[in-house]
């Protein structure tokens, strides 16, 4: 018989755990990247992931600082769409079979092509760990685009990235190649240095007119010194002025970190709303992959921190309810909002329409009983998706349909393009937050010359990036391309 008294003589009593067990999933070990089981728990109204590697022990990290938002988002989960073709087979199990393998639950809304690894900056924070490596040829990129067309049929968005794609001499031809294949939206992900300094390049971009996905971390010099290693504020502002002058649309993309610029999210948003070249803002908590500064996994920035930051820093212009999870990917990955801006007046779309009536697929069985409900849902799905590109005619069209019944809008498409503003908050996964259920329904993928499309967060966290880079760098050194 077991002695029910401890050595000190006190009675042993049962106690409640200090957490709620929310789910069981799979993740990876932050040290050796092997796939391990993981628990998602809720403690003190925050959500954490807890896991154990047989070799490296226990790990815990925060995944959401607002458990209610996290749990409420689950209903915004739209059935996926199956791509026309898969590239790999199911073998070792997710996430080691990317991709896409037949177990993947969503097609690709947004494809990334990393055209090089080199960069004209050397940022202390760089998920791509830019530096020496490879530089793709136009033929390779054409092959990747052709494969993307094969697997998607009607691919929606391609984003050229790197490294720094603007220093690749073949970039204009690559952008054109995507457009020639009928891919609706082409984006260029850039730090903007070349746009700020090179007139000829600016002119070429203006003719091709891709949407510029523009790295813009804040309005303080110190922010740039910390995140980018140098004070880039003037260069950034100059680049924006020049984009406006030639009519290029920009989306501001900020990497957000505690104690650096979390207190600037409101300012970035307000700046974007006022700047004529800017059509949207993307706020991304720093992902701790590639190069990053030391961090505390228990205190990383998560989506609710950014939303709360915006609400607190914009003098009541925004409410928590203005931000709605994106149903095409896993709904904990991203939230979006859209606003109509006119003469300084800002009207968020969620104030005009109860978005959850249309996009909550699990708790709402029926659509609201208004005429055109199905079309409104369709339009909202287009807006609340990873492929919505601010400033594009398609997005404008959807905005117009979605908010039609509640808002007296001037009708010209061009007019609307200039007045619709997108806010997106994306929390990419890193080794501490990696959750297989999210990558399995990921709709953002990195295209690889061998024909694979690898879900972005798997690419960054599981080791694909390193493998692909090593392989391509070696091939290029050996003169294979």
């Amino acid at each position: 018989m077991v002695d029910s008294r401890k050595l000190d003589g006190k009675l042993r009593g049962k106690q409640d755990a200090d957490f709620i067990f929310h789910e069981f999933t799979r993740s990876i070990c932050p040290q050796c990247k092997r796939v391990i089981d993981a628990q998602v728990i809720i403690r003190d109204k925050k959500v954490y992931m807890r896991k154990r590697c047989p070799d490296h022990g226990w790990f815990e990290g925060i995944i959401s600082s607002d458990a209610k938002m996290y749990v409420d988002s689950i209903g915004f989960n739209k059935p996926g769409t199956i791509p026309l073709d898969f590239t790999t087979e199911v073998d070792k199990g997710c996430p080691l079979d990317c991709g896409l393998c037949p177990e993947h639950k969503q097609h690709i809304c947004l494809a990334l092509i990393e055209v090089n690894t080199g960069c004209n900056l050397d940022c202390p924070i760089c998920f791509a760990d830019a530096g020496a490596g490879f530089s793709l040829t136009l033929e390779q990129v054409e092959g990747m685009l052709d494969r993307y067309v094969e697997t998607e049929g009607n691919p929606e968005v391609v984003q050229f990235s790197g490294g720094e794609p603007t220093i690749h001499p073949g970039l204009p031809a690559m952008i054109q190649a995507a457009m020639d294949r009928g891919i609706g939206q082409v984006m260029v992900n850039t730090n903007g240095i070349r746009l700020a300094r090179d007139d000829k390049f600016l002119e070429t971009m203006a003719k091709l007119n891709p949407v510029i996905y523009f790295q813009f971390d804040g309005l303080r010099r110190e922010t740039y010194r910390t995140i980018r290693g140098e004070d880039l504020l003037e260069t950034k502002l100059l680049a924006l002025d020049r984009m406006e002058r030639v009519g290029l649309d920009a989306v501001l993309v900020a990497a957000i970190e505690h104690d650096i610029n979390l207190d600037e999210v409101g300012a970035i948003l307000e700046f974007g709303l006022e700047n004529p070249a800017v059509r949207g803002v993307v706020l991304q908590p720093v992902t701790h992959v590639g190069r990053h500064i030391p961090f505390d996994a228990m205190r990383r920035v998560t989506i609710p921190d950014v939303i709360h930051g915006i609400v607190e820093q914009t003098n009541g212009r925004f409410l928590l309810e203005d931000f709605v999870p994106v149903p095409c990917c896993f709904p904990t990955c991203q939230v979006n909002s859209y606003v109509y801006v006119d003469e300084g007046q800002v009207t968020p779309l969620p104030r005009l329409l109860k978005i959850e009536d249309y996009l909550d697929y699990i708790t709402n069985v029926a659509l609201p009983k208004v005429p055109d409900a199905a079309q409104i849902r369709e339009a909202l799905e287009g807006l609340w998706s990873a492929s919505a590109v601010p400033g594009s005619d398609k997005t404008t069209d959807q905005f117009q349909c979605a908010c039609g019944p509640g808002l007296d809008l001037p009708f010209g498409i061009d007019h609307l393009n200039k007045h619709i503003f997108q806010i997106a908050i994306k929390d990419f996964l890193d080794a501490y937050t990696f959750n297989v259920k999210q990558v399995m329904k990921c709709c953002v993928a990195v295209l690889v010359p061998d024909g694979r499309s690898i879900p972005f967060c798997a690419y960054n966290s599981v080791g694909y990036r390193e493998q692909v880079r090593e392989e391509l760098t070696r091939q290029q050194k050996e003169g294979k391309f």
Partner: protein
Amino acid sequence: MTSNSDLHTKACCAELYQSDLARMLLGDSLHPGGLRLTNRLGRLMGLSRGHWLADLASGRGASAGAIARSFHCRVIGIEYGREAVVDARRLSLDAPVPADSWFIQGDAEMPPLKPGSFDAVFAECAFSVFPDKELAIAQAAALLKPGGRLGMSDVTVEPGFLPEELNTSLGQMLCVTGALGMEGYADLLSHAGLVNIYREEASLHVSELLTKIKAALTTFSVLAGMVGSQEQTPVFGELSPETDWLGLVGRLERLVSAGQLGYWLYVGERPA
């Protein structure tokens, strides 16, 4: 249909054609599926580097440029409209990424080009508007080298199924008044002596287009209702609420799902 409503339709149509709406719906390439289908057609024709191509009714040259660049080919575009040819040349000179494409003014039904010298000839939404289709296909086939391929993408309307309101300039703009049925084009190719005729349905692109039109129309009508029916809007122009545009789109959608209205790609080969 009275001449009054005919005029009305024409006005609407001109308005629609020049509007943001048409540009938004059709883009630069002005046919369903846009450059996506152009690219598909290029693949089906088996284009490869260095091939010589002719583009019949090349418009402002969007497809010719895209094909020339995507498949590293050389394309000569024939277009009847002088302005379009001037635009095509200007756009091609001005293009940030040059393409091996040239444009000449001429009758695409009787192209002023050297017979037997092309690896491929293609025509998008062209045969449906050619009045003498037999002559046009014979001329097109004659341009091919032995083994060369003719690619065609066009609107199909099964005989007898064209809604009356589309027997108008709106119908012309949508390439449906002179369109053949699905078999009609295939017969055309084989009558011209082409072999290995392949066809592929792309009607999905028409459905997509109609869905977009419907979404736009719904919004517009809801908005027009809100701002009062007197209100004329810049995009909507003559498209007045009395015209049952939604009804028309609905009828077209039913025709597409019944297979009576569609969009098809065809490829045929000149015997070696």
